């Protein structure tokens, strides 16, 4: 870190180590990390660019650090949020109490693209719809965290949390010995336990769990195979599965074998061509029937996406009060909904100061970062908002905190966010850590890997 910048207490030990280390050694460690990632094949696919379609995500050797106290506060807040989101999902596919009470507009739920009519009335085991909740957060001050968005479908990136740690432990064993860092490597076994705990009603034996992937061309294929491997379960594609009666089977060299729990990493609309997109070859014909009949559990449940769009997000604090009778422990970012006339007027009048996002957008695509945009870009975006106000929300550019990051062979402050992964089954569990994404360009607020962001290891120190 350059002199003059203030550094929080937990970083001091690591910084001391880095300052006393020969820069040539650091550079070498940085290169070793890249080589390891390449050799192990920790890559993500980039579509539509030709050439090398497998790309590395830049890895930063400087960890992000939380103290035990900081983490325990976050943990309570994240678990609270995950419970409320699941209560909401169960509610909107049953009586819809929250809508009847007038706390959330009916239109936002029932006309939402992610709302699946085919799921109405189904009650998955333990009433859980979203089994892995990824909560994206940013820090704005010593004790201030804001939730940016919730991911209730298939939040990705957890393999990086685990591999980043592996590589850090190989490169910097001394740091791990002198800091007491909570391990994250039990995540796969927690995930397996969670998935087994939600076995469907008709499963009478030890549940068979599988991971369902769209295939090796998918950008997150590494993660899919990694998780299946670490959990010790089969990684299947749609063509490996078939439905007979109320049950799902996989084709094995010994003949058909029953599957009870499917951790699916494909979108709702591809799950079952008989129910959703008829032309899709990725899913399994008849899967929804087996699901409805209680012969198989799909994780996360179809229709879980209705809880995680950027418009529904603004109501999560309301959900926490409504379902749990508690005050939210984590803040939402102040959000203006362009669907509401007053908010729309405010947004249009203040575009240069705001971040505007598409309600259904993801991956950092299609957003406007007001302070960084030209007049021309702002005016073009204004027209887009006016054409369909319901599709946009706006947030202030927060005074995001930065974390020391190894860039151009020295440490410099860069903006980061954090995605912890909350597991919801019979119990609710949070692994002490998460994926820290870092914006490698100076001043940039966008951390998505598709936009040139990198990743770093996330340390939670024990007491």
């Amino acid at each position, binding site marked *: 870190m350059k002199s003059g910048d203030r550094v929080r207490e937990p970083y001091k030990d690591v910084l001391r180590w880095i300052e006393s280390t020969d820069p040539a050694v650091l550079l070498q460690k940085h290169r070793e990390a890249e080589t390891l990632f390449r050799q*192990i094949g920790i890559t993500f696919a980039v579509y539509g660019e030709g050439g090398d379609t497998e790309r590395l995500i830049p890895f930063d050797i400087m960890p992000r650090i939380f103290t035990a106290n900081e983490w325990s506060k976050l943990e309570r807040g994240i678990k609270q949020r995950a419970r409320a989101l699941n209560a909401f999902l169960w509610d909107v596919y049953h009586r819809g109490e929250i809508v009847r009470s007038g706390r959330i507009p009916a239109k936002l739920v029932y006309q939402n693209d992610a709302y699946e009519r085919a799921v109405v009335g189904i009650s998955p085991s333990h009433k859980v719809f979203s089994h892995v909740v990824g909560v994206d957060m940013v820090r704005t001050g010593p004790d201030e965290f804001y939730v940016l968005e919730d991911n209730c479908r298939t939040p990705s990136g957890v393999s990086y949390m685990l591999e980043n740690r592996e590589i850090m432990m190989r490169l910097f064993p001394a740091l791990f010995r002198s800091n007491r860092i909570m391990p994250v490597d039990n995540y796969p076994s927690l995930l397996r336990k969670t998935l087994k705990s939600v076995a469907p009603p008709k499963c009478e034996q030890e549940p068979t769990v599988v991971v369902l992937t769209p295939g*090796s061309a998918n950008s997150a*294929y590494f993660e899919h195979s990694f998780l299946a491997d670490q959990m010790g379960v089969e990684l299947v594609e749609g063509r490996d599965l078939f439905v007979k009666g109320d049950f799902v089977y996989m084709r094995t060299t010994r003949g058909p074998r029953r599957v009870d729990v499917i951790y699916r990493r494909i979108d709702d609309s591809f799950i079952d061509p008989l129910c959703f997109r008829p032309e899709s070859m990725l899913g399994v014909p008849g899967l929804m029937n087996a699901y409805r009949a209680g012969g198989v559990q799909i994780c996360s449940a179809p229709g879980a996406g209705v809880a995680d769009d950027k418009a529904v997000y603004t109501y999560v604090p309301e959900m926490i009060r409504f379902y749990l009778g508690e005050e939210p422990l984590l803040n939402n970012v102040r959000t203006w909904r362009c669907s509401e006339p007053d908010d729309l007027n405010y947004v249009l009048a203040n575009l240069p100061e705001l971040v505007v996002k598409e309600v259904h957008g993801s991956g950092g695509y299609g957003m406007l970062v007001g302070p960084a945009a030209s007049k021309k870009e702002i005016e073009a975006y204004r027209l887009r908002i006016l054409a369909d106000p319901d599709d946009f929300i706006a947030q202030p550019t927060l005074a995001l905190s930065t974390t020391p990051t190894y860039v151009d062979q020295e440490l410099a402050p860069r903006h980061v966010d954090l995605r912890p992964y909350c597991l919801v089954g019979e119990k609710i569990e949070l692994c002490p850590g998460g994926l820290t994404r870092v914006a490698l360009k100076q001043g940039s607020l966008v951390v998505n890997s598709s936009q040139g962001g990198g990743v770093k290891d996330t340390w939670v120190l024990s007491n």
Partner: protein
Amino acid sequence: MLSRNAESLFWTSRYMERADNLARHMEVGYRMSMIPAQSGGYASEWHSILTATNTINQFSQVYAEQSEENVVQFLIYDDSNPSSIVSCLRVARDNARQVRTAITSEVWLAINQMYLAFREFEADPANRLALPELCDWVKRQASMVRGAFINTQLHNDGSDFFSLGYFVERADNTARALDIKYHILLPTTEVVGGGIDNYQWSTLLRALGAYRSFHWEYGGDHSPAKVAEFLILNRRCPRSLSHCVRQTTKQLDNLCSSYQKYLPAQTHALRMLDDISSTSVDQIISNGLHEYLRDFILENNHLAERIGESFLFGER
């Protein structure tokens, strides 16, 4: 195990073995091209290698001359040739990537590193290894994959499918290599035992890594009949047809007993083993070595098809 995974394991090892064998063929090629041919000039060994790898038609469509440079480009670096070393490595790696959950991380690392390293020196012609070094490199890397497999893989059905791929492919390659020698030797049968003839047979043995083994078994006599016997019938030679068929049968026995099923592939393999065990090299030569090898290659292909049917490979 998933049928699709079994299939990917089978093809991963087949393509690794194919790349290994291709490097061995190339080695024969450059050794042969250094000695004068009887008819004057130099032996056109490159032609026979294109024939052995069944790629001569495709080659002729793209290249005018069967020069070393062209053959090397075509059989080693050409992406559009599905039988080139680079294609074999790519397909082996794609299949391994499909079944990363069914192979150990050491096997995956060996395959992935081989592919990445090859890509690296392929990208820059200035970094390309000379042909002899390249052949050695491919053989060594392939041995590392095989070694990682033997040292770390659990002995379950997955390892049986992986091994099956090796032996089915190796049998095919040994039979083809022998068949090519047969063609080369045809015009010179009257001088069997002559200097050139001996050189060709010993070169074949060297390329198969079997030169020393052959001496242990037969002493220094490189007669075609002895070499043919060694590479077809000798059970102790790890590249012989007899050894490959025996190993195939063993893997299929393992699978059948753990699945408690009787499978068409096993019947087929047992019949092949019976045939090869009850014949002699004199019989083979008097009925025609070429005919024998041609029939063997066909039977071996049928075996691969039966394996696919028995374990539900492919979409259905």
